[in-house]
Structure formats: structure tokens, C-alpha cells
């Protein structure tokens, strides 16, 4: 299912050197890359001998953060926040810090974190170690979903082999997170580690100020930390050799839906969506629309999406969002409204149940969308949906309701002709198409 591939950036024809893969370069077919192979491919993790809180060590740590800042690395978990800035603010916080790696990939349509953790765990763990050194952390955690005991066992073994080899100054503790969608949210993970329920909390205070055990906590996606592991070895200029000046580096994307070879691919930031889809085997049928960014992302019509570069800024400019690099292709024969209705129903079932507007608003939104998709709307479904959006958006403690409303709004925009048709004539034949967007618990989940 998962495929490793490379791409050369066709925009620069005189530089046909092999610049990718980077993260996926050390992968051996189908097996976890062990510590020895990892060190042979990339070299040992560049941690100084003295990683304590003395002035010399802190100065080196500060220089490492400088490199990260100059590299322009941004978070690969979806928000795209500058990683150097986050590390800097955690390092500046009072007392010893904590590093948390978020490998709990809550998005059903995303597979990249799972790929990294199962095949290149040492790259991620190098990143955790380096981040711990950079911010002066005395505790480090790697959070993964607890529904895969084999993965957890393999990660424990990897962490153990590093401890035995004396690589990590701060031992990495593997933490199992509940499989719920909201449990992989930043504040939910922190609350879980603190011994509370794995549910989002109301901020302030923000995690980087007071997180685990009330200490400044650097919480990063595992892919971000994997990039950090390479930047520390090869430098910021190297990182910037691919991608765009405004969006440097490479990133992992998960492509699925009606394409020839669904899977995880490593691309340069700024690669047009169409090119990424061709990399994944191209559409198997005439594409109608692309869901970009996952279930908290946006639908874009296929013609609009095709030339758009994969970067946060470019996607924002067309009213979209890159999210965690997820692309799902919807073919013409499918019904976008029906797919969206199913996803919103899933998101409604997955609320933490803590905030009224989300707890009640999302089911109402799901009902209205299902009405429109499967029963034709009776002429007022679109209006009902439009009325519900401002009652849900921004009124929860976390971004769960906002993600759902963003998806719903983008569906009504990208499928506006369909919406009008459904309203007048009832459901289209597309609702009979095999569902493409994976819902955990459904039989057809891949």
C-alpha cells in the first residue's frame, strides 16, 4: 500500500540531480530500519557530549535553534508553525522543559506518521533527542495510538536499543493514546500525560508555556522532528536546497482516492497538486474535486486544484489549507456531498463531548448534510447549513468544530452546482458510488 517515490522539480530543468528522497531515503523494503543501518545511512546523531544545563551546552543548543530557524522548517502536523520559533520560546521558559513527539495520527486519511514510525523510527527519535537538547528538556515522550500493539512494541525496542547504545541523554518514553479523533489533539495529549483524560483543554495557558507537569513543553509532529534530525546533520542551506524560498524543504503527503497508486510520497514543498497526483499514478477516472488537508481541510474543484503548489500560503490563497499533507481525489462518478456528509457524521460522533455548541451543532450539521445528500434537502438544507455554521465555528475549546465547519463550507462551495441540483431534484446517482473517504469502523476502511 505505501510506496516510496522520488520527484525532480521540473521547474528547474538544469538541476536534474537526485535531491529526494530525504526522509524516506534510509528505508529498506518493508522492514523497520534498525539502529545500525540508520547510522550507516545518515551518520550518528550530532549531539554534543555535554548536553547538560551548563553555559557551554546551552550556547550550543542556542546555535542549533539558530540553524532550525534559518532553515525555515515549519510544523508538519498541519498548523505549519515555525519550528525554530517554537523551540526558542520553550527554551526560554523557566526551568527544565519537556519534549513531546506527536505520532498519534488521528486523521483517518493520513498514513505518513505511521510510515515514519514503523520504518524509520530512529530518524524520529534522533529528532526527539535533538529537540530535547535544544530546549533543555529532562523528559521526552513519543505519543502513538494504542490500537497497534506491534508498533508500540517496535518503538519500545528501538528506544531501548538507543538507551543501551548510550545515544539519548534523555530517555524516550513511549505513551499510548486512545484511538479517538480528539485524543491526538495537542492539549489532549498533554492532559493525558499529566494523568488526566485524553481530552482537549481550554487554553490559556499554551502548551509551550505550561504543558506536561506545568513545564514548558515542545510538542511537535514526528515528521517535523525527522526533518530536524537531518537539518542538524546537514545544515539549513541543505534543507533549503529543495522547495521554495518561502516554503523550504520536503514534506510527506498521503495520496488516496481515485488514483492509480495511493500511498505516502515525499515531495518538495511547492510541487503543484497535479504533479503530486501524477506521481501517485494519476487519476483513474476524470477527477471532480480534491480534498486537500484531510478532514479538517477543504474541497477544491479539480481544475482549480491542479496547478496549485503544495504549500500553506498557496493553498490559503485559494481558500484552502494544506493540513498534514493529505490529498484525496474524488472522481466524477462520486457524490462529494455524500462523502462530506459521511465525514461530518464521523466528526460529530468523535466530539469530546465537552462543549455544547460542538456536541449539539455537529450532529445537527451532519443531519442537514445527510438530508441534502440523500434526501434532496426539500429546498432548505443549504440554508440550514449556512445558518448552523456561525453557531458552531469558534465556539469550542479546541479546533474540532472549526475543522468540521471548514470542510462543510468548502463542500458547499466546491459542489455548489450539485447542491442546487440535489435541492431541486433529490439525490444523484453518485451516492451509490463506493465510499472513498475512510471512516474508522466502516468495513471498507483501508
Amino acid at each position, binding site marked *: 500500500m505505501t510506496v516510496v517515490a522520488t520527484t525532480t522539480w521540473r521547474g528547474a530543468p538544469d538541476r536534474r540531480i537526485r535531491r529526494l528522497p530525504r526522509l524516506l531515503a534510509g528505508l529498506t523494503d518493508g522492514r523497520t530500519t534498525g539502529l545500525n543501518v540508520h547510522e550507516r545511512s545518515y551518520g550518528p546523531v550530532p549531539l554534543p557530549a555535554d548536553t547538560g544545563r551548563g553555559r557551554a551546552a546551552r550556547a550550543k543548543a542556542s546555535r542549533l535553534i539558530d540553524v532550525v530557524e534559518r532553515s525555515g522548517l515549519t510544523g508538519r502536523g498541519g498548523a505549519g508553525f515555525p519550528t525554530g520559533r517554537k523551540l526558542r520560546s520553550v527554551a526560554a521558559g523557566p526551568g527544565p522543559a519537556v519534549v513531546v513527539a506527536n505520532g498519534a495520527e488521528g486523521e483517518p486519511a493520513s498514513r505518513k506518521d505511521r510510515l515514519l514510525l514503523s520504518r524509520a523510527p530512529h530518524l524520529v527519535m534522533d529528532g526527539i533527542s535533538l529537540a530535547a537538547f535544544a530546549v533543555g528538556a529532562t523528559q521526552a515522550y513519543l505519543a502513538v495510538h494504542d490500537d497497534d500493539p506491534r508498533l508500540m512494541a517496535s518503538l519500545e525496542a528501538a528506544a531501548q536499543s538507543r538507551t543501551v547504545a548510550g545515544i539519548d541523554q534523555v530517555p524516550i518514553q513511549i505513551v499510548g493514546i486512545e484511538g479517538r479523533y480528539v485524543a491526538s489533539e495537542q492539549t489532549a495529549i498533554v492532559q493525558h500525560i499529566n494523568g488526566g483524560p485524553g481530552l482537549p483543554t481550554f487554553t490559556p495557558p499554551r502548551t509551550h508555556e505550561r504543558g506536561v507537569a506545568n513545564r514548558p513543553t515542545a510538542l511537535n509532529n514526528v515528521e517535523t522532528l525527522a526533518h530536524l534530525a537531518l537539518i542538524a546533520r546537514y545544515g539549513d542551506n541543505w534543507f533549503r536546497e529543495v522547495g521554495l524560498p518561502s516554503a523550504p524543504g520536503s514534506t510527506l503527503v498521503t495520496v488516496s482516492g481515485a488514483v492509480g497508486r495511493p500511498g505516502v510520497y515525499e515531495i518538495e514543498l511547492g510541487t503543484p497538486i497535479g504533479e503530486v497526483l501524477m506521481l501517485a499514478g494519476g487519476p483513474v477516472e476524470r477527477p471532480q474535486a480534491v480534498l486537500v488537508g484531510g478532514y479538517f481541510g477543504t474541497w477544491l474543484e479539480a481544475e482549480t486544484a491542479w496547478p496549485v503548489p503544495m504549500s500553506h500560503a498557496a493553498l490559503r490563497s485559494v481558500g484552502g489549507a494544506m493540513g498534514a499533507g493529505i490529498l484525496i481525489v474524488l472522481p466524477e462518478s462520486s457524490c462529494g456531498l455524500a462523502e462530506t456528509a459521511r465525514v461530518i457524521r464521523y466528526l460529530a460522533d468523535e466530539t469530546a463531548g*465537552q*462543549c*455544547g455548541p*460542538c456536541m*449539539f*451543532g455537529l450532529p445537527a450539521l451532519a443531519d442537514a448534510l445527510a438530508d441534502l445528500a440523500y434526501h434532496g434537502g426539500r429546498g432548505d438544507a443549504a440554508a440550514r447549513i449556512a445558518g448552523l455554521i456561525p*453557531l458552531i465555528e469558534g*465556539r469550542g*475549546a479546541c479546533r474540532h468544530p472549526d475543522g468540521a465547519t471548514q470542510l462543510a463550507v468548502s463542500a458547499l462551495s466546491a459542489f455548489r452546482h450539485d447542491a442546487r441540483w440535489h435541492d431541486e431534484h433529490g439525490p444523484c446517482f453518485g451516492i451509490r458510488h463506493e465510499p472513498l473517504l475512510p471512516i474508522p469502523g466502516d468495513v471498507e476502511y483501508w
Partner: protein
Amino acid sequence: MSQHLRVNPIMCTGHGMCAELLPEFIRLDPWGYPIIPAEPVPDELRGLARRAAAACPTLALLIDQRRD
């Protein structure tokens, strides 16, 4: 200094006491939860706003004093 209201959505259980005391500023959504405008509280309602925050059964209504 302007006074702003905000609600902790986790603590709020939709009692609606705030909307009763401050109907000029706070409305309830169809599920009984308060809709708090982002604008500052009008001067003449400041006292009532403080009373509404004190009356909230779960202390979910919060007052922010912001320097403009």
C-alpha cells in the same frame, strides 16, 4: 480599559443565567449555550456583566479587562 466577556466552553453547561441577566448583550443558541459577541461590553452594562459572571453556576463566564 475595555471590558470583554468570554466563556470557557468546557465549563459551560448551558444554564443560561448569563443571558437572563444580560439579554441586551448575550443571546442563547438553539441548544441553550450563550453567544458572546467579540465587541467590548457597553459601559452602561458593565455592572450587570460583572453580576452575570458572578452568577454563572459553573463560573464559566469570564471577564477580561483589556487595555485599548
